[in-house]
């Protein structure tokens, strides 16, 4: 009788084990579900800190005083798995952000695929489903429309995010919220250079014959698009006719100011006197980025009204010379052609096109902090404070500078970009000692005005000549205030990165200019939160380029214009040697740590076996004693 009972008991125990196992799996599933819902604690230890809510976002959220209604137009049952994950990722991030201030947010989730009213509402505000894009992106999918857009309302103001992107959602959300919280959009004025390309090719020499010349004219449409996203943008026209800079303009960009009439300069001075901010880009050479040449049209800032105004403020730009930088030089296309041979397009190092890295951008102020690689062309240096003293009450902060391997060169009427000429010129310039030069600086304080005690300049009539109505003083909208003037010895850093035909003008490494411009606007309009958001880009961590290092060390890049066949063969041999050396260094760098790890492993193995050998004679006894010891313990 006992055996069947025992048998039944064993069976019961096995069932018990199976049920326990199922129970454990159930606990694991439920535990994970509960953790997913309630254990939302995450810490980002990475140096870039891109995976956690930034301080800038928290600061913007902290400023909310009233209720923010977030209307999320999202498809609940997404058939396409990839889009479902994308939706889930964005909703997770949204939940995480809303949880920081749950008291102020009201989330309304609407599914346009289920409710015709929600679909109508979404369509009314211009939202579209992602159907077409999803199919194209994933190479399949059901093709059903997937909605994912949102609208935020705060105090009867509305901002929309038509296409939330999983990896930029926080920036999108915080920027939209920042726009909602702002009392007004900052006003940005623009004067002194065409912001859009001219309808007809410009009068630049060669424009008619060569369309490249016209296409590479320095226009600023991409800057305008970037600024118009969050500011009111207005070209300042008619200042010479007696018009004042409008009151709602906070920052004015003054580009190529050498030729500005005196009455325009007076209007800009009045703007600064009442606290307006200027970004001034002095740039006399007209640079054609695609051809790599520049034409100097002297509009000497020294004798111009704007130059006099700047010098009165303690600001001088050395427009008679431009900078060569042997360390921050850029690689760009150049044409090499000998007599009787067809020209060849080659890559040359151009010390006149300077790409300033992190080391050349100030860490002391926010606009340049975290900006990567701003590209300047034929830049003028800003005269040091020792040579151009500041008036009382004005302070100076340098923002951008060259490397120590920089020299000043005379500006010739036609600047060549032939690689051989460049090399010869650099060799000549390097005979003089190099030094650091400032390309951009910020000045702040109470700026003196040349018109404080004098009559204002005459206004210009339609014919461009002084009118009889000259001399009328511009109405002042406020008392004299502290202001800021940011000056750069170049305007090309703000230029479009692509020509109208889509040809790249600025290398991708030199696209920090737009970020710097946006940062400057935020800094000058006291909106530093957005700078904090914008700087949340992954830090570039480039690898050592052994090949370039070895090539440079071997002098392969320095081409002699009168190179003989023997010298060319010698350079080729040097090039091969540099390649082998670079390859060898690369392999050594790769193999050393792995080899070290294997060596450690081998030494450990030898040590272990030497130590264990005496015990191996009686493995059973050793194991037994181990386990018995454990038992006794």
């Amino acid at each position, binding site marked *: 009788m006992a055996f069947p009972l025992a048998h039944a008991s064993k069976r019961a*125990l*096995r069932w018990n*084990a199976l049920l*326990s*196992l199922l129970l*454990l*799996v159930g*606990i*694991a599933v439920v535990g*994970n579900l509960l*953790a*997913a819902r309630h*254990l*939302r*604690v*995450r*810490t*980002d*230890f*990475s*140096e870039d800190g*891109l*995976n956690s809510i930034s301080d800038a976002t928290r600061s913007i959220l902290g400023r909310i005083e009233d209720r923010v209604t977030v209307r999320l137009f999202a498809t609940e*049952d*997404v058939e*396409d*798995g*990839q*889009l*479902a*994950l994308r*939706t*889930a990722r964005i909703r997770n991030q949204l939940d995480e952000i809303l949880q920081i201030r749950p008291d102020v947010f009201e989330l309304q989730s609407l599914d346009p695929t289920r409710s015709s009213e929600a679909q109508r509402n979404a369509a009314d505000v211009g939202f579209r489903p992602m159907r077409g894009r999803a199919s194209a992106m*994933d190479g*399949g999918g059901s093709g059903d429309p997937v909605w994912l857009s949102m609208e935020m309302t705060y105090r009867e103001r509305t901002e929309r995010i038509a296409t939330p992107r999983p990896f930029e959602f926080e920036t999108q959300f915080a920027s939209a919220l920042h726009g909602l919280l702002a009392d007004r959009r900052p006003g940005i004025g623009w004067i002194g250079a065409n912001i859009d390309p001219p309808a007809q090719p410009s009068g630049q020499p060669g424009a008619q014959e060569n369309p490249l010349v016209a296409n590479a004219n320095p226009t600023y449409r991409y800057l305008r698009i970037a600024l118009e996203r969050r500011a009111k943008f207005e070209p300042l026209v008619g200042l010479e006719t007696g018009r004042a800079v409008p009151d709602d303009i906070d920052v004015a960009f003054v580009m190529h100011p050498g030729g500005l009439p005196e009455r325009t300069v007076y209007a800009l001075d009045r703007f600064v006197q009442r606290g307006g901010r200027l970004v001034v880009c002095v740039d006399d050479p007209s640079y054609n980025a695609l051809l790599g040449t520049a034409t100097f049209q002297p509009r000497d800032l020294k004798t111009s009204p704007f130059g006099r105004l700047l010098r009165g403020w303690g600001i001088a730009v050395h427009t008679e010379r431009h900078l060569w930088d042997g360390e921050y030089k850029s690689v760009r296309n150049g044409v090499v052609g000998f007599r009787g041979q067809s020209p060849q397009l080659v890559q040359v190092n151009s010390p006149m096109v300077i790409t300033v890295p992190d080391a050349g951008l100030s860490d002391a102020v926010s606009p340049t902090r975290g900006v990567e690689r701003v590209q300047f062309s034929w830049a003028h240096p800003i005269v040091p404070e020792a040579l151009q003293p500041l008036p009382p009450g004005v302070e100076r902060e340098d923002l951008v500078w060259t490397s120590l391997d920089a020299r000043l060169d005379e500006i010739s009427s036609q600047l060549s970009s032939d690689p051989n000429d460049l090399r010869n010129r650099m060799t000549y310039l390097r005979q003089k000692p190099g030094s650091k030069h400032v390309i951009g600086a910020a000045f702040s304080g109470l700026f003196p005005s040349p018109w404080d005690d004098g009559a204002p300049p005459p206004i210009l009539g339609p014919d461009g000549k002084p009118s009889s109505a000259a001399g009328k003083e511009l109405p002042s909208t406020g008392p004299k205030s502290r202001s800021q003037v940011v000056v750069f010895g170049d305007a090309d850093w703000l230029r479009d990165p692509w020509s109208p035909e889509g040809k790249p003008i600025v290398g991708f490494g030199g696209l920090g200019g737009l970020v710097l411009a946006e940062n400057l606007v935020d800094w000058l309009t006291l909106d530093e939160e957005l700078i904090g958001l914008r700087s949340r880009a992954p*830090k570039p*961590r*480039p*690898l*050592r380029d052994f090949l370039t290092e070895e090539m440079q060390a071997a002098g392969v890049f320095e081409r002699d214009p009168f190179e003989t066949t023997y010298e060319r063969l010698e350079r080729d041999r040097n090039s091969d040697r540099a390649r082998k050396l670079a390859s060898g260094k690369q392999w050594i*760098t*790769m193999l*050393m*740590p*792995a080899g070290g*790890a*294997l060596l*450690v*492993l*081998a030494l450990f*193995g030898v040590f*272990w*076996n030497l130590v*264990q050998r005496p015990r*191996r004679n009686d493995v059973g006894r050793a194991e037994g004693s*181990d*386990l018995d010891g*454990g*038992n006794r*313990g």
Partner: protein
Amino acid sequence: MGGIKVFPFARRELRSAFESPVAYVAIALFVVVLPALFFFLGYPVGRVPLPGLWEGGQASLIVLFHWLPLLLALVVPALTMGAWSEERRSGTEELLLTYPVRTGAIVLGKFLGAWILTLLMVSLAVLSAALTVDQLGDLDWNTVWVGLAGASLLVAAYVGISQFVSSLSSEQLVAFLVSALLLGLFWALPLFVRIFPGDVASTLNATSPTTHFLGAFAHGVIDLRDVAYFALITVVSLAGSTLSIESRRWR
């Protein structure tokens, strides 16, 4: 009573591993193969293939971390296939179970031994690659340490699952194949989510250890949800192994 005398069993596992050349060969291969894939091949899996170190040109170990779930899905079953099946085949399991200690302690000891061995292997490979990258550029070491911490949890889950499979089988090869298939399936789940409807896709994605490891740890983020996931998987698989071994006592 034996209490929870775990460490003698862990030592026994480690000792037997280091007395044979298998562990040395496995570690050496891992130390060579993982960085080689990272340096030269990149991670050509999934919709967005990642370039190798030289091609990508950035000082980051993210590609190396992408390889870990797949390589470990092959290596861990190989290292743990004999944990129980070999004991059973050679008849030492019965001897082991006669020790006056709880089965759980033996299971935990074997788990600890295999976990330490695998972790040593992963650490050597990851740190040697990290040292190389650090010489070449500005490596974010915080991400490396967090990635290694995540790898230790991933290894724990993999070792737990593989030992559970080993406890069910008396053939090493069968244990290896089943474990590798199971872990490979877990690894591959995120690759096929788009063919499933939305809800199923989300569930399958959340089931995969790859998602939990690459989603946070590999980027330098510690998320308690991921820690809970790996902890639960490990505990459940260890408890499963204990029940599986325990059930044999009753036969």
